């Protein structure tokens, strides 16, 4: 199993470790509920070094990124980030990802750990005819995420970068606790916060500094368990659960990342047709109104008939409700629609609700 450079830190903080797509990662430290609440009310520190990083450079770097993705990378100025996808010709997902515009001929793509090798092979296979160089830098990079309302105050104590000037979905290069880093105002929790990318062989320095400075602010380390409950409350997609090469971008309710005016991209024709004709099914959020917790693959029923399966489901620690996502025939995605979730030998009641389930109040 692969380990991140923070492995010893996790041991020191008494993490429970699990296997996650070939990586030995912390699933929890103090407990999922405490960790989840810390991120919603104070701040939490995540090791997400398993994520993949791909560099695309060259004269055609922008044209190539435009070809691979449905969002409009031409709108990015250097220092800006965009959420987008790697799409198949069928308009489905190879992966979802962030695109960083480092310079006009220099893009930095951040992809899921579980897909990093597949994505890189996909990118290389589609580079023919583009004047670009590509490099899979996943093993060089460590990534920490500091998320929560206190994140900016804690991180500001450790960097000369003026964080007030790094707005949401922007980034800058600078030192954090003396270590060279790319500091990005992004995250996967629904909170304000930062993702910090480093090639330094010893990112533990930054980990330790954040937890030392953050102690007074209530910062604690957060495992993958709470990362999943946090992202689901905020209805952020998880590849393999909520999106895959079997679901289109429009079915995933991500029309906002499809910029049809920008020119051609992989999957455009299918997605444009789907936009005109309307999707037959769409991802919808639900809340269980009986007692029970929905888990991935549990059946979703309407009138006793199985219509689909739960793609993600959990007990939401901040909302204190059982929530989930599922693809439903479009006529059943109306807010308030009653559905049933098959939990072992019972069918429990649930209803379609607006998403995101949780939205932070902006200051």
């Amino acid at each position, binding site marked *: 199993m692969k380990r991140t450079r923070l492995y010893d830190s996790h041991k020191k903080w008494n993490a429970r470790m699990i296997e996650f797509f070939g990586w030995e990662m912390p*699933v929890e430290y103090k407990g*999922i*509920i405490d960790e989840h609440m810390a991120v919603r009310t104070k701040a939490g520190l995540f090791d997400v070094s398993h994520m993949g990083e791909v560099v695309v450079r060259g004269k055609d770097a922008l044209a190539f990124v435009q070809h691979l993705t449905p969002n409009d990378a031409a709108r990015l100025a250097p220092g800006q980030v965009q959420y987008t996808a790697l799409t198949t010709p069928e308009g489905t997902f190879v992966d979802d990802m962030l695109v960083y515009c480092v310079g006009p001929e220099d893009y930095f793509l951040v992809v899921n750990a579980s897909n990093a090798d597949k994505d890189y092979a996909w990118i290389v296979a589609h580079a023919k005819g583009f004047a670009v160089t590509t490099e899979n830098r996943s093993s060089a990079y460590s990534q920490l995420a500091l998320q929560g309302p206190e994140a900016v105050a804690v991180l500001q104590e450790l960097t000369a970068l003026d964080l007030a000037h790094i707005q949401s979905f922007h980034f800058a290069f600078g030192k954090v606790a003396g270590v060279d880093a790319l500091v990005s105002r992004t995250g996967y929790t629904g909170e304000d916060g930062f993702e910090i990318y480093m090639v330094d062989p010893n990112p533990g320095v930054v980990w330790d500094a954040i937890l030392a400075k953050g102690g007074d602010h209530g910062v604690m380390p957060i495992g993958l*368990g709470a990362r999943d*409950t946090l992202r689901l409350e905020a209805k952020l997609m998880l590849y393999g659960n909520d999106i895959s090469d079997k679901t289109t971008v429009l079915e995933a309710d991500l029309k906002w990342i499809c910029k049809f005016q920008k020119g051609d991209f992989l999957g455009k024709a299918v997605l444009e047709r789907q936009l005109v004709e309307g999707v037959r099914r769409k991802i919808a959020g639900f809340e269980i109104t009986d007692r029970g*917790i929905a888990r991935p693959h549990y059946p979703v029923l309407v009138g006793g008939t199985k219509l689909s399966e739960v793609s993600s489901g*959990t*007990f939401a*620690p901040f909302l204190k409700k059982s929530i989930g996502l599922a693809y439903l025939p479009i006529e059943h995605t109306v807010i308030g629609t009653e559905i049933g979730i098959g939990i072992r030998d019972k069918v429990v009641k649930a209803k379609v609700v607006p998403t995101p389930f949780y939205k932070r109040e902006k200051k």
Partner: protein
Amino acid sequence: MYPREFRYTKEHEWVKVEGGEAVVGITDFAQKQLGDIIFVELPEVGRTLGAHDSIGTIESVKSVSDIFAPVAGEVVAVNGELGQAADLVNKDPHGKGWIVRLRLADKAGVEALMTVSDYEKYLEGLEA
């Protein structure tokens, strides 16, 4: 950590014999594995259980697990407090977090379970 007078199973349940009855719960090791517990689904009082029958389920944030009857018997009481406070199983697994009370079908079933020293050795094997 683990009460001397209890008996234990490989599925990390404990049994405390009180006369002809037995109180059943899950061990501290089990609650740590499960993490934050949200619901405990309990059996009906009066149900007769064979050893290894499912008593109910425990739902934690990240997983769901069956609870099995360590010994045969009739359910004479369930811990109703868990309906409002399932996290008692996390906070006090060997005490207030008990799950069911059984009228034992026979005592031989209990004698076959692990003693505390057997269970502690078993755990060392798992953690090694």
